[in-house]
């Protein structure tokens, strides 16, 4: 018998949307966030982000490739899932998923190909054997690297990156809408939900890039670009403030209005969810990173590279936890409240093994990194151009390749 507080509708005892449904918005958030970083360079010409621009794009693709896996694992009949695209129900928010996902996938694949096209051709000419065959396939039979062709490539990349931003927001804001548009659940039902999702997606994307970029540089023995880290920290700080404001705004409004649902939501947040909400999402996830990032942003002139890297790495890691906690608190928290609004579940623990368990979640989260490793092996993302090498050495930073 499950422990409950108050009165829970007999059918509300079950958490149907499990850890997998927590993971799904987390992954699409990383997709959208990483894409935004790459677009800041490709569309808004933010030169400081050049070192991570290509990597961000590839990371976005790597996460997008696994985004559907948790959903399919969650479904009772995954093979029927294809009906979402064949016979969609026009009134269903969920019916758009297949189209948004595939549309975004096309944009992303096309942009990745254009960004790496010149490299692909170079490697196709340089390498031999199996590797050459792979590059030849990737080149899709186009070997034009003239200035004119490259200029067209750049224009196309800019265009795709530009339409990709609303695309990413649509893909992820839509996930927020899935929750926000359910009037049955007071903890989900708010028009703020898609906006909160989008901003926290950008937070998770930038945070993931700060972490992955630093780890990648360490693994490859390259020097971490300070300007890039500083820029990302600045953006992260801003997006964190917006996200935290929105998340708090939702609660403050509910409690100040003394809304009917606040009675139960308050009980949830300060009861069963107090660790993951107050502890992880708000204190560990917002307050500490906010202070750390503020230090980095305001004191960057007096700060050594090593300190800045450590601080940003810590803040970014905490923010990755914050966003995961936020997804958890929304998805699981929403189901812990009974629709009777008179009671809630005391706790929920996901299973360890099994198709929707913790091990499976970890397994899914490892796959994008495997994809990134393979991609890095095929198409190195961190090779600096000659001019940048010069610029780096001018800045008295040692650079090894």
């Amino acid at each position, binding site marked *: 018998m499950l422990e409950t507080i*108050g*009165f829970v*509708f*007999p*059918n*509300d*005892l*079950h958490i*149907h*949307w499990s850890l997998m449904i927590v993971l799904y918005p987390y992954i699409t958030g990383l997709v959208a966030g990483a894409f935004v970083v790459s677009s800041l360079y490709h569309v808004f010409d933010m030169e400081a982000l050049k070192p991570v621009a290509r990597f961000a794009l590839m990371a976005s693709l790597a996460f997008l490739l696994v985004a559907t896996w948790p959903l399919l694992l*969650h*479904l*009772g*009949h*995954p093979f*029927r*899932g294809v*009906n*979402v695209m*064949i*016979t*969609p*129900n026009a*009134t*269903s*928010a*969920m*019916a758009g*998923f297949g189209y948004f996902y595939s549309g975004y996938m096309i944009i992303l694949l096309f942009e990745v190909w254009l960004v790496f096209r010149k490299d692909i051709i170079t490697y196709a000419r340089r390498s031999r054997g199996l590797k050459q065959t792979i590059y030849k396939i990737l080149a899709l039979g186009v070997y034009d690297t003239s200035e004119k062709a490259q200029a067209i490539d750049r224009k196309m990349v800019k265009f795709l990156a530009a339409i990709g931003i609303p695309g990413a927001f649509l893909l992820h804001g839509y996930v927020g809408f*899935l929750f926000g548009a*359910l*009037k*049955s*659940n007071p903890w989900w039902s708010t028009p703020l939900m898609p906006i909160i999702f989008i901003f926290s997606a950008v937070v998770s994307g930038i945070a993931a890039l700060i972490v992955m970029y630093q780890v990648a540089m360490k693994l490859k023995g390259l020097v971490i670009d300070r300007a890039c880290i500083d820029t990302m920290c600045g953006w992260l700080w801003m997006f964190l403030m917006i996200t935290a404001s929105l998340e708090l705004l939702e609660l403050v409004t509910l409690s100040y209005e003394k809304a009917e649902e606040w009675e139960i939501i308050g009980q949830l947040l300060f009861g069963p969810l107090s660790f993951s909400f107050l502890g992880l999402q708000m204190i560990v996830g917002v307050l500490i990173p906010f202070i750390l990032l503020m230090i980095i942003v305001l004191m960057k002139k007096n700060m050594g590279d090593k300190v800045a890297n450590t601080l940003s790495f810590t803040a970014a890691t905490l923010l990755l936890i914050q966003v995961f906690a936020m997804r958890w608190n929304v998805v699981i928290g*929403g*189901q812990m409240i*009974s*629709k*009777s*609004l*008179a*009671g809630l579940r005391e706790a929920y623990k996901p299973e360890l093994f099994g198709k929707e368990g913790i091990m499976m979640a970890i397994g899914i989260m490892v796959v994008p990194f495997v994809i990134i490793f393979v991609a890095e092996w095929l198409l190195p993302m961190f090779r600096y151009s000659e001019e940048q090498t010069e610029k780096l050495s001018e800045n008295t930073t040692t650079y090894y390749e």
Partner: protein
Amino acid sequence: MEPIKEKRVLRERGIGMKDISRRGFLQAAMGASVLGALSAVLSAVVPGKVKQALASTKVQPEKVRTGYDPYEHYYSYIINLHKCIGCGSCVRACKMENDVPTGFYRTWVERYQKGEEEHARIDSPDGGLYGFPATTAGVEGVTKAYFVPKMCNHCDETPCVQVCPFGASYKTPDGLILVDGDRCMGCSYCVQACPYGSRFINPHTHTANKCTWCYHRVSKGLKPACAHACPTGTRMFGDIKDPYDPVRHIIEEERIAVLQPQLLTKPKCYYIGLDKEVR
């Protein structure tokens, strides 16, 4: 009043037609012939409304044989809370009739005990499957207590059908909300969208499951199992397209309420004597 009684007799006989036993058949045949004669007399004497009523009834033997036309019906449900004694017969009947998995409920009964505290104390042990233990423990100075049977409201503006990604959940012409178990992929979106907690994912079939108002019975002229089993007449099932149906009369003439009216889901389950504590 007379036509309603006639209608009842007709319905009873109609039900009898479905029994394959010799006795049932003979009873029904007798009933039908008596009613046939009666209707002939009635139609000769009072043509207007009565004739219409008899024509619209779905229990004439020919209708049963030729099949069921969902466009001729529109169902509603009345729950008279003044009558419910919390025996749980309906929950048991539903479990048996529909093979509802353990721990899940297509219908359930809640008990409310209002004392000195701000809110009523609510409980529903095993959905009321085994009735309720006689206790007022934990509630001081109980001033009122009542039972509230609940089930799918078969809402006209139902959020569950709205959110189903590809129409596995749908509304029938006679107003029922059903799930196509061969089509449902088990995404649970409808379960989340239902404000009444009426839906669940069947752990055996991994598809959405809910009250069907016993469509398999209703479409044969029978009552849903819960209404059939109710010993006090708390639960009443009826067809509002039938001008002489008692349920239609209650909806038209009595003061009734629905659960969570602010959500505008337009439930077709109407309550008599609903208290403000009930959501």
